[in-house]
């Protein structure tokens, strides 16, 4: 089998200007924040960023990398932080956005994962999500004629997720909630996994039931200890780095301070 180990620089190099990037995790939980900081420091631009978003999206907005955000929510869930950059960008109309519900974005990923153009759901009916996203159609369902939302497939060029351990061959464990990472890796053309630790295949096997990421979905794996900080990953570290998050919030809206923040962390 091919060895899929990569360096951080090799991963970043595989991302192109204008790419759509889907990011795993949830709020401040199991976000590949080390990789995100590298994107923030890079020359990349005009990205479309999708996710159940927290500091990942907010930091990319602060860095001016985001052309469009596609979200189920934007919250520093599981910490004391707040999405200051996204809030500011939305107030001032600086970015394009597609604000969905949790199940709508998940449904879009599920459709992409099965390579079907849409997913039928009731989620969103009767809400202003449809009003502000006129591209999302409703349709009459076959057989019953019920009105349903046809949630369009949300496919990405690149998926980034963070796991506990990975093997060089491209298997990885998720010991807590897999959240929707098992879906988004199927909804992207290239998938990069950062892991707290790269271990030989046979060591990964001690947690057989935690192997949630299978190699056919994976393009590359990169070892980044503490790669989800200042967010959390169970069981490695489960308390958010609220001091670092506060430092980020204090810096995010000031380019000079934000640069200093990125250099420090």
């Amino acid at each position: 089998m091919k060895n899929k180990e990569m360096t951080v620089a090799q991963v970043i190099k595989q991302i192109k200007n204008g790419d759509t990037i889907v990011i795993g995790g949830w709020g401040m939980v199991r976000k590949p924040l080390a990789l995100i900081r590298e994107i923030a420091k890079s020359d990349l631009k005009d990205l479309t960023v999708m996710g159940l978003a927290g500091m990942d999206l907010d930091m990319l907005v602060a860095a001016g990398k985001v052309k469009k955000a596609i979200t189920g929510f934007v919250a520093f869930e599981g910490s004391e932080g707040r999405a200051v950059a996204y809030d500011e960008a939305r107030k001032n109309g600086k970015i394009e956005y597609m604000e969905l519900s949790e199940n709508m974005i998940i449904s879009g990923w599920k459709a992409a994962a099965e390579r079907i153009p849409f997913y039928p759901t009731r989620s969103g009916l009767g809400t202003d999500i449809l009003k502000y996203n006129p591209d999302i159609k409703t349709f009459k369902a076959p057989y019953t004629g019920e009105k349903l939302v046809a949630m369009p497939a949300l496919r990405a060029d690149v998926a980034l997720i963070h796991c506990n351990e990975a093997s060089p061959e491209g298997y990885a464990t998720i010991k807590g909630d897999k959240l929707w990472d098992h879906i988004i890796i199927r909804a992207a053309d290239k998938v990069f996994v950062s892991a707290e630790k790269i271990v030989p295949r046979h060591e990964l096997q001690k947690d057989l039931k935690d192997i949630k990421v299978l190699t056919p979905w994976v393009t590359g794996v990169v070892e980044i200890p503490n790669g989800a900080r200042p967010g959390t990953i169970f069981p490695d570290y489960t308390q958010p780095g609220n001091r670092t998050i506060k430092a980020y919030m204090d810096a995010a809206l000031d380019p000079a301070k934000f640069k200093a923040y990125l250099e420090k962390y």
Partner: protein
Amino acid sequence: MAKETKAATKTKAAVKTTSKKSPEKSSTVELAGDYTVEEQLCCAMAREFGPNDNIALSGVLNWTFVAEALAQKMYGAQLALHHDYSLVGGAGCLTENPRFPFQVGNPPPEYVSAPITSEDIFAMVLGGKWCIMMQPVQVDKYGNCNLALVGNPEKPERYFVGSRGLPDNSTNAVRCYFTVPNHQKRVFVEDVDFRSSAGWGPERKAGDIPYGAVAKVFTNLCVFDIDPKTKQMRLASVNKGVTVDQVLKNTGFKPIIPAGGVPETAVPTKEELRLIREVIDGAGINRLDHGTPEAKKAVFDQINDGTKFQQIYPGRK
């Protein structure tokens, strides 16, 4: 047993109560004479669930935790309660017979039945096995709720967190309950700035949304339900010591007032109060959601003082 705090003003029980499943209809049930508004609300919320509710129930406020545990205990309900289990199990969990408090993310294992993933949760939402009790930013007279932002959605004054699971629950869940610990005009508005949940708008009236309708809204002042005729928010009952006028003054829309007058919110029974005070919530977390700072401090002192805590829950760490 929990001490009453200053925030919890005591009054005599009103006789007239509302609730489909009012236990006081049984001749053997004794009504409580002495109870707080928070306890009254916990009981009113708990009575929304019956033994046939074979579902998972998810709340976000301390109030609702206590109400859910009371429903599970009191009515022999098949309710499974949803809590965060992220620090211990890395996910959510379904709990049974919890006793409060516990740190968010960390319910003691003896209460945990099974860890559940996000995928499990949405399976229950979409499959009609999920019920929420949650706190919105705004509620309007059609029962629409907003969790996303304040102001013009295209350039909001403030972006909160987005609509999250509200569009999903309000179209798929068994039913939705909303709780507002601080009833004010800026919460209860004529029209929400952004419809995060599907209330009784034209789509539901047209029959396009068969599931997830809002059933009731519980606030520190009153209980709203939906008027069957107009499908607008109706003032179902006022909490003890609260007048109808007080509710109207703090509500930004004109709720439907029942022709026969507004009754008082259901009065707790002695057994309900015993379960809350002695079994489920000896530490009094039900007073944390809208009490005064002093009242909250009293609760926290009781929890953080090892000796007092051991008196409440002998043997628990």
